[in-house]
């Protein structure tokens, strides 16, 4: 079969150490975050991260459906990650598949470690993540959007969860892979961090890294997560910082 249908492998890293889109190895793509675009949801956020566009909506705490999932001592978190049919080049067959089930599960577990679920027994907190346009790193973008949406919904949490992917591109560890780097790179490692405590709440890996590379990747990812965390806090403040408003958002000094 050889290279039937195979695309030419692009040059992922040039002589000056610049990546395919001109970024340095430790540089993030451009990110914009908007909190509260949806009015019907209890909380929502829209994140554009490079060429990713992700919308997240949070409902609840509310009655549990189906009822047998109810837990008497705490709220359950139900997350659904979904990619739109038009989010990728070839039409994606709509609906849940093995990949989106897995991502929904790991994101749910990441949030279970920060949300104060004991405050809302017998209820459900429902998170919906819709990927409208995908370009590698959608689970991280989705997690960041969901995190903002939870905060927007006024749900008590220990901290916001921040996420980023690290990877190995042309033999070097690089932050925040885009599609070509993900497809033709040697490794992809999405991670989510609770910045205040430094706890990792999601870590997955595809490809190969040796021990040193892994350590290097985690350090770089932690740095990236903290950078994103600052942007998330800004985005939340921005919702309440209207020019006419005398009320300033956030924590009083």
């Amino acid at each position, binding site marked *: 079969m050889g290279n039937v249908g195979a695309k030419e492998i692009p040059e992922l890293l040039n002589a000056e150490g610049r990546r395919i889109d001109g970024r340095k190895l430790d540089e993030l793509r451009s990110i914009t975050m908007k909190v509260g675009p949806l009015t019907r949801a209890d909380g929502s956020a829209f994140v554009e991260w490079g060429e990713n566009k992700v919308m997240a909506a949070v409902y609840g705490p*509310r*009655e549990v459906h189906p009822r047998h999932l109810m837990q008497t001592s705490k709220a359950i978190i139900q997350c659904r990650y979904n990619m739109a049919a038009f989010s990728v080049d070839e039409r994606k067959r709509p609906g849940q598949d093995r990949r989106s089930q897995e991502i929904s599960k790991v994101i749910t577990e990441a949030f279970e470690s920060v949300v104060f679920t004991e405050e809302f027994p017998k*209820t459900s907190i429902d998170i919906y993540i819709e990927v409208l346009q995908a370009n590698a790193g959608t689970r991280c973008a989705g997690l960041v959007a969901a995190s903002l949406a939870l905060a927007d*919904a*006024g749900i008590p949490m220990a901290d916001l969860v921040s996420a980023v992917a690290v990877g190995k591109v042309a033999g070097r560890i690089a932050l925040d892979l885009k599609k070509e780097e993900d497809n033709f790179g040697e490794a992809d490692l999405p991670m989510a961090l609770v910045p205040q405590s430094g706890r990792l709440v999601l870590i997955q890996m595809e490809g190969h890294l040796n021990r040193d590379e892994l350590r290097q990747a985690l350090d770089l990812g932690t740095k990236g997560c903290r950078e994103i965390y600052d942007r998330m806090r800004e985005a939340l403040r921005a919702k309440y910082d209207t020019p006419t408003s005398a009320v300033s958002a956030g924590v009083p000094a």
Partner: protein
Amino acid sequence: MGYATWREPFVRVVPFAGRYSPKPHDVIVGIVQDVQKTFWLLDIDASRWAPLHTSGTPWEPGPGELDEFLRVGDAVLVAVENLDATGKIGVTMKGEGLGKLSGGTLAGVSPAKIPRVIGKGGSMIHTITQLTGTQVAVGQNGRIWVDGNPDGILRVRECLRIIETEGQRSGLTERIEGFLRSTGPTDDTGPHPPRPESVDRRGPDRFEDDPSGPDDSPSIPSDESHEGEGPWET
């Protein structure tokens, strides 16, 4: 996202947004979601549905007769009676002004904006009802019941929208008053006699001889905590 207060070693955050969190004696608007043998389940926009037992109503339906009084979809004005550790929210319909809401329409704002809707000493809600000739019941859960002429209802809804989006700005009552006076035939003198008693305290069979008439039933302390206003403004 909220305001934080410290008391070492704890931090308490009061969220800016979020669902209604019930407090005892709050007067709220619920919508019947389910009818059981001895109680109704009300959606009150909180994290859980709240059961309304027949003992908390002026009616005495036999088992299975509950839907003769309230059916799924009916709106009721009730008060929060008790909260238990499991998060169950008990509500009652016994108390002044409480009962089934007949006619009218439901609107809503975020529960956090309710103090703005009522205004200082009820000034805001008084202004709105006076100038639109409507009858309004404000639930602490953010649901607001409005009855009156269609034009008045639309203007009340517009007022609520303004409060929701610009609620943090000062001089809100004046701005609302300006809006109402500028739009349309205001009804200070209006041709809209307030509708008599739209709250239907009666079921299909009212027990006229009920010894514990609704008014001397365990009364809900008047809403002192909510800026001294009862739920009613006419």
